[in-house]
C-alpha cells in the first residue's frame, strides 16, 4: 500500500496534540489574567471626573478629616458625597476663580449637583454598609488605600467577592482600634494576628460564621 501520509505528518500530529493542550492551558491562563488585570478590575485606573479632585491635596496636604466631606460614613450605609456647598466653605474664599473649579461654581449657581463618576461601584445585588464597618474597627485605608497619596481617586482593591471574604473569614487580619479608623497612615503592627484577635473579641465581631453567610451581603 502506498504511503498515505508523509513523514512530516508525525510532526504535525504531535504539534496538534500538544498544541491543543497548550492552547487550553493558555486560554485558562489568559482568562485568569484578564479577570485579575486592571482591564477588568479598574484597580489603579482613575475615572474621568467633572472636576479633577485630588484627595492627595485635601487629605494629605491639608489634613482634612474624611468625615468632613463623607459625613454619613458613621451613621449610614452610604458614606455620602459632599454637597457643592461643602466645597464652597473653602472655595468661596480660596481658588474662588480658578478655571479648574468652574464646574463647582456652575453647580452652585444652578443648584445642580456635580455628577461624579463612581469609583467604588458595587453590583446591585451586594448589600454593603459603611457604618457597621467603621463601628467595628475597619479603617478607611483598608479598603480605599492611601487616599492621601492619590492625586486622582482610584481603586486599590478589586472589590471581588473573594476580596470581601478574605476579611469576612479572618477579620483579625485587618481590624484596627476604633480611634485609628480615620488614620489613613495606619499600618498593622507586627503582631496584628494577636492584637486583631483581641479587637475582634472586644468589638464583638461575630466569628460564628454569620459574616460568611450568603445572606449577609446578598439580601
Amino acid at each position, binding site marked *: *500500500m502506498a504511503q*498515505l*501520509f508523509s513523514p512530516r505528518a*508525525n510532526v504535525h*500530529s504531535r504539534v496538534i496534540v500538544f498544541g491543543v493542550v497548550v492552547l487550553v492551558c493558555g486560554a485558562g491562563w489568559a482568562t*485568569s489574567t484578564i*479577570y*485579575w488585570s486592571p482591564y477588568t478590575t479598574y484597580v489603579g485606573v482613575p475615572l474621568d471626573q467633572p472636576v479633577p479632585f485630588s484627595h492627595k491635596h485635601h487629605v494629605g496636604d491639608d489634613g482634612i478629616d474624611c468625615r468632613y466631606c463623607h459625613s454619613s460614613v458613621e451613621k449610614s450605609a452610604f458614606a455620602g458625597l459632599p454637597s457643592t456647598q461643602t466645597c464652597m466653605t473653602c472655595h468661596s474664599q480660596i481658588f474662588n476663580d480658578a478655571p479648574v473649579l468652574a464646574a463647582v461654581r456652575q453647580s452652585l449657581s444652578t443648584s445642580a449637583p456635580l455628577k461624579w463618576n463612581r469609583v467604588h461601584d458595587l453590583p446591585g445585588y451586594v448589600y454593603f454598609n459603611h457604618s457597621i464597618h467603621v463601628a467595628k474597627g475597619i479603617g478607611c485605608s483598608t479598603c480605599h488605600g492611601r487616599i492621601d497619596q492619590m492625586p486622582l481617586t482610584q481603586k486599590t482593591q*478589586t472589590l*471581588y*467577592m*473573594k*476580596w*470581601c*471574604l*478574605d476579611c469576612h473569614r479572618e477579620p483579625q487580619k485587618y481590624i484596627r482600634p476604633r480611634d485609628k479608623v480615620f488614620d489613613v497612615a495606619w499600618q498593622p503592627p507586627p503582631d496584628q494576628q494577636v492584637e486583631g484577635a483581641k479587637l475582634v473579641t472586644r468589638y464583638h465581631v461575630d466569628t460564628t460564621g454569620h459574616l460568611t453567610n450568603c445572606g449577609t451581603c446578598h439580601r
Partner: protein
Amino acid sequence: MNTPDQSPLTSHESPSYSPLGYPTNLLAPGQTYETVNKTIAEIPLSHAPMSWRFGFFVAFLLLMMFLVAITWLFAKGVGIWGVNIPVAWGFAIVNFVWWVGIAHAGTFISAILLLLFQHWRTAINRFTEAMTLFAVACAGLMPLLHLGRPWVFYWLFPYPDTMGVWPQFRSPLVWDVFAVGTYFTISLLFWYLGLVPDLATVRDRARKLWQKKVYGFFALGWRNSASHWQRHQVAYLLLAGLATPLVLSVHSVVSFDFSVALVPGWHSTIFPPYFVAGAIYSGFEMSLNIVIPVRKIYHLEHLITERYLNNMANIMLATGMIVAYGYFIEAFMAWYSGDIFERYMMMNRAFGPYGWVFWTLMLFNVLVPQALWSARIRRNTVALFIVALFINAGMWIERFVIVITSLNRDFTPSAWHMFSPTRWDWMTLFGSVGLFLTLQFLFIRLVPMISISETRELVAEREKATIK
C-alpha cells in the same frame, strides 16, 4: 449467567469451546476473516440504505425540535416548564437519571464482561459503548438546562474564581459533575481505544483517497504489529479495570441526589444498589432496542447471533427482578418504619393522584419483563424488541414516580401542588431522544459498528477449536 451455553438456543451447532474458552457458537458457521472484514468495514464505506436515510431524517427532525425547545428555554427561562414549588425538579431531572441509566450498559458490557471473560460481549460492545457516550451527552445536558442561569454552569467546577468560594463539596449535585464527567471521559477513551485497529481495517479497505486519509488519521498509524497489539491489550485491560468501579459508582452518586435529601420517597438506603440495577436494566433494554433493528437492516444476524440477544434478555430479567425487589423494599420500609410521612408517601404514590403512573410502572417494569422467562419470547426478536420498549418507557416512568410523587406532597400539606408537564417539557424529552438517535445514526454510518478485530478473534478461536 456463566453457563448459558447449555441453553436450547444454540441452533447452529452443538456448543463447544476453543482452548481459550471461547464458545464456538457465538458466530454463525462459515465466517472467515475476510467475510467478517467485508461485512462490517464495508458499511461505513458504502452508500447508506434507504432505511438509514429515513431514520436519520426523523431523528434529525427531533433534534431540530430539541433546538427549538432549548432556544425558547434560554430565552424565557425554566418558567416555560411545568416545574414550580414544591415540584421544582421536573422532567429535566427525570430525563437526566433516565439517560444516565441508559448509559450504563456500555461500560457493563465493555468492562465487566471483558474482565469476566464473557465473550458474548464481542458483537455488541461497540454499539453499547457508543450508546453510553451519546446517552451521557443527553444526560449531561439536562441539569444544565435545568439551571436557572445556564450560562454560569461552569460554577460547578472547582476553579480559582474571583468569588473565593468553591462548589459545595458536600452536595451530591457536585459529586454528579465528577461522576458523570469521569464516566464520559473513560467511556470515550475506552471506545476510541477499541476502535483504533478497526479504523485501520477500514482505512486499508477504503477505495477513495480522502477516506483512506480520514480513517488513517484516526487509526493513529496502526500497523497491526505484535508490539502494537501488546500495548493495545494492556491499555484496554487497564481502562476496563478503571471503568469497572464506575459502573457501580456513577449511578450510586446519581441516587445520592435523592437519598441524601430528607424528602420521604427519596431518603432511602436501598437507592444506590436499586439505582445501579435499574441502570443496567435500562441500558440493556436500550441496547436491544437499537441492536435488533440494526441487525435486521444491515443483515448482521450471522454476527449478532441469537446467543447475544438471549444473554441480554437474561441479564434484563435478572436486573429487572432486582429492580422489582427495590420497589417492594421501598413499600415495605415505608410500612415497617412506622413513619407517618413515609407511609403517606407510599399511599400517595400508589393511590394518590399519580397512582395510575405508579401502576403503569408496575405493569411495564415488573409484569411485562416476566415474559422473558419464556425462551420463545427471548428467541423472537420482535417480541423481545417490544418487551424492551416497554421497559424503556417503564424506566422513564420509574424516575417520574420517584421525582414527582415524592415532591408533590411533602411534609406541609399547605404546600402541596400538582405537577403537569407543558409542551416544552415533552419537546425536551423527545428532543433529547432525537439527539441520541442522530448521534447513533451517525455512528452507524461512520465507524465500524461491531468490533472487527474481536470478531476475527472469535473466528480464530473457532478454528483452534475445530482443529482440536
